[in-house]
């Protein structure tokens, strides 16, 4: 039972293999590049976060509402945390998307898992950004002297 497959003679490439500037090929390339650029920046942001919260002063024992209010009184730390939130969430989401593509074989399962992932990501990024921008040192229960 041999089937003979004609040699490909035509110069035409099936459109589904074409990689135009707006196609998935270029998206995946940008995602690949983003993982590397964000990784380098995240090292600085996360190491700085861990040093300031766990290594200096009283470390973990020193964290409280007042500690957070002290940090977010400075635009530097607000910006630091905002950049860390966005980059870590986008980097992590893209990484988990790759993992879903690798292990979820059924099309519907994949679509569902990615849908849940993207909803969670948007929710966390919006929530975290609002928390930084609308932070109020005098919320309910605050014992800070200025309140």
């Amino acid at each position, binding site marked *: 039972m041999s089937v003979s497959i004609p040699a490909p003679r035509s110069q035409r490439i099936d459109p589904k293999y074409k990689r135009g500037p707006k196609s998935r090929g270029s998206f995946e390339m940008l995602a690949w590049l983003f993982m*590397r650029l964000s*990784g*380098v920046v*995240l*090292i600085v942001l*996360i*190491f700085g976060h*861990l040093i300031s919260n*766990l*290594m200096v002063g*009283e*470390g*973990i*024992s020193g*964290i*409280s*509402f007042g500690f*957070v*209010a002290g940090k977010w009184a400075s635009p530097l730390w607000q910006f630091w945390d905002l950049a860390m*939130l966005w980059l*870590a*969430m986008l980097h*992590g*989401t893209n*990484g*988990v998307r790759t*993992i879903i593509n690798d292990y979820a074989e059924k099309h519907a399962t994949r679509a569902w898992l990615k849908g849940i992932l993207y909803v*969670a990501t948007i929710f*966390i990024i919006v*929530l*975290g950004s*609002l*928390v930084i921008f*609308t*932070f*109020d040192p005098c*919320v*309910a*229960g*605050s*014992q*800070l002297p200025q309140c």
Partner: protein
Amino acid sequence: MSKTSSGTLYRGHEGMWSWVGHRVTGVVIFLYLLVHVLDTAMVRVDAGAYDAIISTYQTPWMALGETGLVAAILFHAFNGLRLILVDFWKQGTKYQRQLLWGVLILWVIVFAGFAIRHLSIAFGSH
């Protein structure tokens, strides 16, 4: 994947274990981050409620968990840097095995420094 283990580049070698480690630590950090942003959001609701949540992070058992989390971050970060070097540095592929040793040595040193400081705060009289 090839069914025969001989002759494959990856399976069972350092390249595969570091890849598994990178993947597992990436997912662990991601899950932690989801929970972490949720509990930090309590600062917007009630200062006392935030302090109550944070005090659970200040117990010895949680300190062990935090130490594990930081171990995962340090591995993912240093190994990530190795992956970046392998991709962008001309000599990267040639020295990838040496780079992996570098990652492990750096990881042990930085982790030891972290663990000594963090655990002595968490278990000490502070």
